[in-house]
């Protein structure tokens, strides 16, 4: 059952990821990205990472992509806009970066050990890994510093956005 679900959602994820690149219309690309995000979230569920799956939808599909779609709809189709000048050297720069990305992927896959998830019941939760309580505990104990640093970073971004918006208005 899980294998069947994995294949279905993996195929959808890859197909919509390809569709993002192949579409000319930016709105279709954005919608395909939502498809990718949604099927990734389904894959998280098959891995028993329910919290991650829900957050994936809430944050990416529900918040960020709504903004993307919103902006694309406001600008509508860029028919009358001048064609963006294609930079030749960027294309050649892409090859080493792609190689680097593939090398990194292989490096990560090589170092991953087959992990056995503990199926013990904790406080009525289905699985010990991937539940809200285990992630919360990890965030506020072992990973407190990265968590706080990230929140400060986001706060800075918010303040920066507000400063920029204010300057436009004056």
């Amino acid at each position, binding site marked *: 059952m899980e294998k069947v679900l994995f294949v279905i959602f993996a195929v959808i994820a890859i197909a919509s990821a390809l569709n993002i690149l192949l579409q000319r219309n930016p*709105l279709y690309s954005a919608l395909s990205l*939502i498809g990718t995000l949604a099927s990734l979230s389904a894959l998280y569920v098959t891995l028993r990472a*329910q*919290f991650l*799956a*829900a*957050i994936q*939808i*809430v944050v990416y*599909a*529900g*918040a960020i992509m*709504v*903004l993307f*779609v*919103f902006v694309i*709809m*406001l600008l509508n189709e860029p028919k009358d806009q001048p064609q963006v000048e294609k930079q030749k050297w960027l294309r050649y720069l892409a090859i080493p970066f792609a190689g680097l990305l593939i090398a990194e992927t292989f490096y990560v896959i090589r170092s991953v050990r087959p992990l056995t998830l503990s199926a013990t019941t904790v406080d*009525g*939760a*289905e699985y010990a890994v991937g*539940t*809200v309580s285990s992630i919360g505990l990890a965030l506020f104990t072992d990973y407190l510093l990265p968590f706080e640093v990230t929140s400060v970073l986001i706060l800075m971004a918010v303040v920066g956005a507000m400063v920029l918006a204010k300057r436009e208005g004056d």
Partner: protein
Amino acid sequence: MTNLLIEWIIKTLVILFILVTAVAYLTLLERKVMSWIQLRIGPNRVGFWGLLQPVADGLKMVFKEDIIPTEANKWLYIAAPALSLVPALMTFIVIPYGSQVTMFGRTIELHVTRMDVGLLYIFALTSLGVFGIALAGWSSNNKYSLMGGLRSSAQMISYELAFGLSIVSVVLYSGSLDLVTIVEKQSGWLGHLGWNLFSPPLIPVFAVFVTAALAECNRTPFDLPEAESELVAGYHTEYSSMKFVMFQMAEYLNLITSASMTTTLFLGGWNGPFVGRYPILGLVYFVCKVLFLILIAMWIRFTVPRFRYDQLMRFGWSVLLPASIINVVISATWVMLRG
């Protein structure tokens, strides 16, 4: 495993049937309530007390011509109603309708499934509902539709923040994101003194939550996306026949969802007197509470005038959002001091 699967399928089908019927009769109820408030009689021709009116309306809508505007983006135009209806239907699997009943010789839990992240699941689905409305507005290729769609996405994004932050307070208080656990925590003396509504830090949270929930379902006084005096009918101006019906269904389903969410989070869900002895009473209490909240939403609709768009945005960002942040601080402090 197969037994469980069959049970899930049966439960889902039963809930689906009940929801569709409820949506049909909510349209009748809404018209009846409107007529009472406006001192009129309301629909009373089709069947006794107008009880067959939804059937007649449904038949009429099925046989209407289904129009797709020539300049519309055809695929998105067709997909948009489904995109708003499906997430609205999906939320109902995590809502607990009662405790447990024994039926056909087996104990049946009165909820389709419980998950550790139930509240986040509902939240994720409501945030996906925006796409249907926004895409409907855009793909119709009509300026009124586009304005309606843009307004509704802006509104839903703005009010989602207050909505989510009020949920945070409840989660802090109950210590769980699982709706079943949240309801079970609210059982108290006589079955209603443990309601979250009766705990001091959550009273302001309730006010913010109900307001944000009304705005999330695009109902008056927050029905800016379909303000008929300025936008014809908003995002569904171009829609006709069953596609229009799907939007209407999604809207009523969202109303039921937010009423059930309010019931579950604040009014103790299925808790009530004697529910321990007769578990089936829980179902009755749940339906009564949801119906009560829906009636209040209708009452508000026919009493309060619509906000202006800038008022709506200012209210969301500079009143509701700060209020909900303060609420989170207060309830967190309360939970910490209580130990």
